[in-house]
């Protein structure tokens, strides 16, 4: 509602604290480059021949650019942390929007759980501890994350810059060194289909999309940026960085690690060891731990504040909006910590992290398809709405986006580690069913209770009529 949409939500006023382009890029790239990235990259190697996995990542990167266009336009229209609620609510039935949003929120729990598992396992391996000790690391990491969130600790912009660019640079150095020190030429770097079918390449692309996933979460920082265009420019640079780093890491892993190492829970440590021996292993253990900084910080804040906002809006029980003395919504933070811990321990026992990758890839592709749909729908429903950033050929590209991302979501949801497996689909269906049950059965009661509470609360403003229901009172 700002007078000049191109001036951003501040209406052109310079804020005392605002994020520049550098931090916007690091936020976007940092949220995407979780510890799970290494395992997804290693998993992708199994789908294509030799060192050609970078081609699948390149195709996925082009698709990420398509998604970037949709998110850029939608974020420009709604430069707010609540953007996903706004553009979905205006594009479709609110109940459908809520079901999709709640289902998508599963991704955040998955990523936090997966990162806790990966970091815990990597640290246990680096210290030479037995497997069960990783469970203690996982619990310790998540308890630390929950406590720091409850105390309102958030990572400063410069720390985030240092962490993200440090992780990306270290990965590039280690991957390059591993390649150079192997003294072997690349095998089939341009023939992804050598010994594999086209279907495998499609599955590799679906998994590749996951490598870029969460780059769009930076749109929740739209209210903090110095200039509105920093968000879509930052996402663009982040997609480019992710392509370079992930491609290099994947090619290096496929080149120097064997199948057993690639399917381990810590291929990045083994890559580090191949590059620099024991020092490289420790360096990558440190890098893995640093990735958790962004995931835990961004994941906990994004999810808990979204739950808080939705509860304040009246779409979730009021108890979820209860604040502690540091103005932190403590119920969602604790619930997220408990859920992530339970999931991480299950993964630790079952070693089913590839299932998390598949579920995450499918949900991410789903939300990209939804973004394409919203872009198309809002072009028709709100053609006059200011759009500081517009996707060219939106009607065509939106349809392409819906079809391609929809298909990738289906492919990713029935494939785990290069074999057909419907379990990811079952997990997503269960999350969607739980969301639907809540939205269709429980939510009407929650809203009725809230309406009754408001009706029983006398209006305080003098000399004004009682507002009609839905006026926000």
């Amino acid at each position, binding site marked *: 509602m700002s007078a000049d949409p191109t001036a951003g939500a501040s209406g052109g006023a310079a804020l005392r604290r605002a994020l520049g382009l550098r931090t916007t890029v690091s936020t976007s790239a940092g949220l995407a480059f979780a510890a799970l990235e290494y395992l997804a990259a290693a998993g992708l190697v199994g789908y294509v021949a030799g060192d050609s996995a970078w081609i699948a990542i390149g195709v996925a990167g082009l698709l990420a650019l398509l998604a970037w266009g949709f998110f850029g336009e939608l974020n420009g229209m709604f430069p707010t942390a609540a953007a996903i609620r706004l553009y979905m609510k205006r594009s479709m039935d609110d109940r459908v929007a809520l079901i999709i949003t709640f289902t998508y929120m599963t991704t955040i729990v998955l990523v936090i759980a997966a990162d806790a598992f990966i970091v815990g396992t990597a640290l246990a391996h680096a210290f030479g501890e037995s497997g069960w000790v990783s469970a203690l690391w996982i619990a310790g990491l998540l308890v630390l994350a929950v406590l720091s969130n409850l105390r309102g600790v958030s990572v400063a912009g410069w720390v985030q810059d240092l962490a993200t660019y440090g992780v990306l640079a270290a990965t590039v150095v280690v991957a390059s060194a591993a390649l150079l020190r192997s003294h072997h030429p690349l095998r089939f770097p341009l023939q992804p289909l050598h010994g594999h079918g086209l279907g495998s390449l499609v599955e590799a692309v679906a998994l590749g999309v996951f490598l870029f996933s969460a780059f769009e979460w930076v749109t929740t920082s739209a209210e903090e940026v110095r200039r509105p265009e920093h968000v879509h420019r930052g996402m663009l640079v982040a997609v480019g960085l992710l392509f370079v780093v992930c491609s290099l890491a994947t090619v290096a892993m496929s080149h120097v690690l064997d199948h057993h190492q690639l399917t381990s829970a810590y291929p990045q440590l083994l890559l580090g060891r191949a590059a620099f021996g024991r020092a490289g292993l420790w360096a990558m253990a440190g890098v893995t731990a640093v990735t958790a900084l962004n995931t835990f910080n961004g994941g906990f804040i994004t999810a808990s504040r979204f739950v808080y906002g939705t509860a304040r*809006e009246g779409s979730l029980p009021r108890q979820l909006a209860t604040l502690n003395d540091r103005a932190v919504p403590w119920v969602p933070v604790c619930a997220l910590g408990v859920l992530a811990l339970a999931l991480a321990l299950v993964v630790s026992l079952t070693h089913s992290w590839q299932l998390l990758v598949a579920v995450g890839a499918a949900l991410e592709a789903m939300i990209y398809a939804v973004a394409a749909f919203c872009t198309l729908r809002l072009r028709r429903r709100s053609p006059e709405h200011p759009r500081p950033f517009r996707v060219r050929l939106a009607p065509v590209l939106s349809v392409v986006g819906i079809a391609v991302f929809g298909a990738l979501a289906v492919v990713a949801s029935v494939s785990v580690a290069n074999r057909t497996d419907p379990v990811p689909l079952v997990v997503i269906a269960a999350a969607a069913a739980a969301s639907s049950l809540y939205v269709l059965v429980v939510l009407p009661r929650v809203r009725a209770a809230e309406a009754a509470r408001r009706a029983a609360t006398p209006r305080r403003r003098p000399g004004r009529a009682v507002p009609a229901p839905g006026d*926000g009172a």
Partner: protein
Amino acid sequence: MATPDELAEAYADWRRRSNENQRLKKMVRGWDRVIHFVPSDGVEAFTMEVRDQELGELRFGRVGTPDVVVTGSSEDFCDMFWGDLNPSEKYMSGEITLAGSQADVMRIDAISMVAFLDQ
């Protein structure tokens, strides 16, 4: 459209209520901020400052460099200060927009919620 007098009266009530709330005082400990409220309907902008755990007096005009800028209708601001309006609902519907860090935005919402609901 609310008049400046109505806004001033509403803000004075909000300020008194907030400053008397001990829990809220804990919540804003160390949170010294300048907040600009910019009505989108032509009413003059005004500034609120939080310093030493207290909400300061309302000053018309954009005073100082803001940490947060809140944009919305003067009617909504008035209703929010009286506790008759849930600002989160207006925010989630896009009728109130904010610029500033998420943590600061949370604190502003916390003030309006705790002052009236003590939640």
